[in-house]
């Protein structure tokens, strides 16, 4: 298969397959998780301003007192990588075109040099948190094959995308095809791995905040 044919396949059949599996997986997982339901809390509630599920969805993004000093790399690496990834995925003009095709609307992007900078920061942050996962006893103890696998699934799209724009290693056509392919792999595996936290983090924080908010405790 020639370079352009490979690219056309990942842009066509591959993309169709990946997005289909992704949507199917997301729907199955969301429904199978949240349909389990929760018993109503019959204890007399205590109402305190700021203590609620919604509050926690946002507030939990701030490290609890004393935790940042204990684990700076987890927090800083995590923030840089998530925000950087968000910038690269949603504010790079070629990506916005992709979303426009899917959703029918678009939004303004950032200058490509800014996105390039964000991509480099993201790559560095991802490498840092990989090293942290290898070197810290708790993280190493908890890590299974899935942790290394999902790290790779997340890292490769950023790396190959950046390499494509920088014209590194392989000819652009192939690099772009690899980039799109790695994105497709990420999409396919996302609903079935810990990467699904991208969706469930909201529900989890909300439940936590609600249960504690019932007691008037702002978590």
């Amino acid at each position, binding site marked *: 298969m020639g370079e352009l044919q490979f690219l056309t396949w990942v842009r066509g059949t591959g993309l169709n397959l990946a997005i289909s599996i992704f949507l199917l997986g997301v729907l*199955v*997982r969301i429904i*199978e*998780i*949240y*349909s*389990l*339901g*929760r*018993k109503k*809390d*019959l*204890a*007399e509630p*205590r109402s*305190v301003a700021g*203590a609620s599920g919604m509050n*926690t*969805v946002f507030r*939990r*993004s701030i*490290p*609890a*007192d*004393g*935790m940042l000093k*204990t*684990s700076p790399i*987890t927090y800083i690496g*995590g923030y840089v990588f998530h925000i950087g990834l968000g910038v690269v995925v949603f504010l790079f003009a070629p990506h916005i075109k992709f979303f426009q095709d899917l959703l029918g609307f678009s939004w303004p992007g950032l200058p490509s040099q800014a996105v390039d900078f964000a991509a480099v920061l993201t790559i560095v942050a991802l490498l840092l948190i990989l090293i942290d*996962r290898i070197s810290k*006893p*708790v*993280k*190493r*103890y*908890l*890590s*299974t094959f899935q*942790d290394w696998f999902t790290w790779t699934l997340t890292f490769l799209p950023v790396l190959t995308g950046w390499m494509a724009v920088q014209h590194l290693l392989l000819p652009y056509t192939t690099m772009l095809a690899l980039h799109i392919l790695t994105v497709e792999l990420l999409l396919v595996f996302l609903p*079935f791995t*810990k990467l*699904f*936290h991208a969706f*469930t*983090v909201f*529900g*989890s*924080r*909300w*439940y*936590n*905040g609600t*249960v*504690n908010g*019932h*007691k*008037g*405790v702002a*978590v």
Partner: protein
Amino acid sequence: MSASLEKGVRVLKEVIDAPIASYFSSCVHCGLCAEACLFYTETGDPKYTPIHKLEPMRRLYEQEYTVLGRLKKLIGLSKAVTDAELAEWQELVYNSCTLCGRCSVVCPVGNDIVYMVRKFREGMSASGNAPDGIKGAANRTITIGSPMGVKLPAVKAQMRHVEEDYGLPIPMDVEGAEYLVMLSSMEIMNFPEYLGAIAKIMHQAGKTWTLCSTAFEATNAGMQIGNSDLARVIVSRIVDAAEKLKVKTVISPECGHAYTALRWEGANLMGRSFGFKVRHIIEVLGEFQEQGLLKTEGFETDRLTFHDPCQLARRGGVIKQQRNLMNMVSKNFVEMPDAGFMNWCCGGGGGASAIEEGEELRLEAFKKKKSQLDTVKPDRLVTACANCRIVMEEGLEHYQMNLPVVGLTEMIADHIPNPVVAKPEGN
């Protein structure tokens, strides 16, 4: 003798709900929960990582409630939960977890890990894997009436001593009283001053109150074992008593898990809301202070600090009241680092203090409390939980720290002038 793995698994299937499913699906193995747990920070052993304490339940959730997990089970690719595994997990789920809840407030994806440990204990207890120490306490609570084996005659004896010492009546089984006061065995046996303190405070505030002969024990070992059926038996005694005596409010004593069991789990165990309120004694004192019903004289002059019991502060939402009360009777009150919402556990809650095999671990974990105290260097340590008091006294002795521990209610009552009560005529 009918505990079995099958029963345990069935119970776990019952208790797994949407929150638990969401939590397991969200965990990204960041390990921050370990950094918040004193059992990890003081031992450095990663097996004490809170989310790891739930591993068998996570696998069960996957195998029973997810499409992929069910498919994997069908084709024989999943590792079943075994009784041996649950037995191995006993140390993690009980000895090294006091249900203090610090993990739940730091998890970045919002996992309420303490909620999950509480539910996991349902399966652990039903499968016969609860520790002997707490099983004994549960046994005594249900058959005798208190985990320390305290019976009504002993209670009545303490009532008489207190009446004599303080010159105030200690009412029992008084219908229509505003407050039903609960006690914990620890108080009845070790800190009887608590009862006298209650009498003084209620007398000054002009409130009616009573004990109950059929329900004087607040400690809920059923909840500590994590078995709702047993917890319900214990709670229903209190609920029956409160409804029989038609009280407005039930006061939970200076105990941590007793408050959680009655205030937050009680109605859910009974399957209906209560017709009475449940308040911790510190909450009641806080109300009295606000309403001007608490009038104290004089101040403690030594350097005091306060240990927030986990179930009262972080898990119960009572944080400001104890500070206001401390400031009422102390001129030299200093906070320890991480005081209040993020306070570190004493290491003995949730039934842990009843587990003999866990003592070494508890004492090692106590290094965290020791470091807080070493920073603030108080003359005395005040708290509002009798179990915390005992556990901390043991820890302080082990590390040869000469630091007295006192209860807040008693300290407040010490600053209430003794009442002059006319003796009944003819005596």
